């Protein structure tokens, strides 16, 4: 028997496969038994009620998709009343994703959501920070450190910080999140993108721009997961474009301790269950006792064909 369990800080997950926020809900329970998943990660909620963005909210781009759902939310009260009890029927740990327009509002929600039944809080610091001109907290190390400190002070639950690819300072932001008290990093959210319908000349999303997810995002977020795993000591949870068992392995080898599967579930609702089976089969076939033996096993010193020449520029 191979061991699929992984450790994310104090939390032990039965396997490293879990859904990505916003691409999963209680509705998936009509398809398969959610207890099979390593964790259950909810759509981001806000304190108050929000409607989300105008439609159209999704469009297809070559082999991937854009979304501008926004964060429609019923508010924290109804979430605690209805959703937390729903997920308590499952033994996979519940991870609640939250967000706020300001660091203080964010921290307040963090405190309010720290209720029994919630195993960890994923803080979506990729969302716009109203006090920083709408730039996401996780675009800059300073705003990341600031918001993480406030969130850390607001709860004793494990805090997973979800980073954004819309930055040139991934490693610095990762270190800031760690310094601010994150127990794990989720790497990453969607990449800001756009698509225009040539016939009508209208943007194909009602909100003009939206986030790129799916296979096109993978090389970008895999690079970030690798950079983060090198930069910090806390676990990294890979996310972005994971559609096949090879994608799962690629992230684990790059240094991720677990992965989140997003858009792929829209294409194949049962894909996570199939990945768990395939991961077990892979370990068995290759005589690898534990999935933890894969984590960070990238042979990055041996990448170059020769070492006669090497420069800094990519």
């Amino acid at each position, binding site marked *: 028997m191979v061991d699929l369990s992984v450790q994310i800080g104090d939390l032990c997950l039965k396997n490293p496969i879990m859904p990505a926020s916003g691409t999963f809900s209680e509705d998936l329970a009509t*398809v398969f038994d959610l207890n099979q998943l390593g964790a259950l990660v909810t759509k981001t909620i806000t304190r108050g009620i929000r409607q989300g963005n105008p439609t159209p909210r999704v469009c297809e781009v070559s082999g991937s998709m854009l979304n501008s*759902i926004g964060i429609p939310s019923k508010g924290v009260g109804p979430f605690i009343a209805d959703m937390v009890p729903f997920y308590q029927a499952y033994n996979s740990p519940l991870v609640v994703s939250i967000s706020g327009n300001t660091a203080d509002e964010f921290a307040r929600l963090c405190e309010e959501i720290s209720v029994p039944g919630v195993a960890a809080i994923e803080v979506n610091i990729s969302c716009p920070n109203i006090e920083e001109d709408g730039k996401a907290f996780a675009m800059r190390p300073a705003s990341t450190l600031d918001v993480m400190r406030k969130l850390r002070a607001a709860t004793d639950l494990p805090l997973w910080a979800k980073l954004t690819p819309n930055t040139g300072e991934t490693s610095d932001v990762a270190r800031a999140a760690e310094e601010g008290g994150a127990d794990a990093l989720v790497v990453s959210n969607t990449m800001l993108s756009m698509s225009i319908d040539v016939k009508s000349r209208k943007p194909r999303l009602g909100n003009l721009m939206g986030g790129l997810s799916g296979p096109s995002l993978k090389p970008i977020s895999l690079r970030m997961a690798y950079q983060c795993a090198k930069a910090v000591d806390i676990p990294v949870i890979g996310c972005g474009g994971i559609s096949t068992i090879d994608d799962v392995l690629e992230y684990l080898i790059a240094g991720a301790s677990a992965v989140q599967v997003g858009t792929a579930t829209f294409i194949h609702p049962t894909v996570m269950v199939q990945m768990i089976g395939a991961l077990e089969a892979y370990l068995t076939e290759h005589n690898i006792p534990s999935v933890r033996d894969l984590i960070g096993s990238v042979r990055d010193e041996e990448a170059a064909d020769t070492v006669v020449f090497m420069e800094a520029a990519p």
Partner: protein
Amino acid sequence: MTAAVLHVTPDSVPANERVFESECLVKSNMPVNNDYRLLILDAPAEILNCTPGQFFHIQCPVRGGHQPYLRRPMSIYGYFPEKGELQFLYKIAGEGTAALAELESGESLNVVGPLGQGFHIADDWQNLLLLARGVGLATLAPLALEAQRLGKKLTAICSARSPELLMSIDYFRDLGAEIITVTDREGTSDLAHLQGVIEGLIAGPGIDAFYTCGSNRLLKLLQELGAKHGIPGEIALEQQMACGLGMCQCCVRSFRAENGIVHKRVCKEGPVFDLQEAMGW
């Protein structure tokens, strides 16, 4: 290979809420007329526990220049658990449906469903009126079958650009429906004419419920007639979808509710909605 579901649905889920991802085999995929094609699948029995108005989320193949990525929602045109058959009537609209049209008999097609809320037929409704245009007939066809099964009287007003594009007329007639056809070419599909026809039916045999789908014009007409005569009704709506399961919230539309306008997901609360709650677009 044979048609098969790809996973086990938990026992705790009520039979009528179970959703399956499954591989089906194409039995045939033929043009019905210039615009529409009929896709007949060999489907596992589990997935055929459907309600008229529900839909499947279809993974169109990657084929030739076509590389659809997301699934495409398609109303169930026919579902026959006895013979393990699932049918879709579709129109080539873009990349996904163009790729779908290239599927050949014997090939495999991955479908997710049945999905969404179907039509309701209250026990005390006897005379049902169905009003549809073009591919909308696909959505309403299984309703006709269900009406026959329940012994209801059904009148179907079928609208199209021209007479040769009228579809499924025989299908509806075989099910004992009374058919009224209207076409643009004959000048019989305009609202004034339609209103006259429906008012006539209301005054004559009477109508207990309206069923329609897809057109703003028809929606408005039926809302007015429904309000005027106190006749309930349902409408099937469309919206761009990603997950089809209620998870992503991309398929919302606005609906009238007591406390203002609310958003509902077409894939989950719909695609069938109360006629009076629906809003034009």
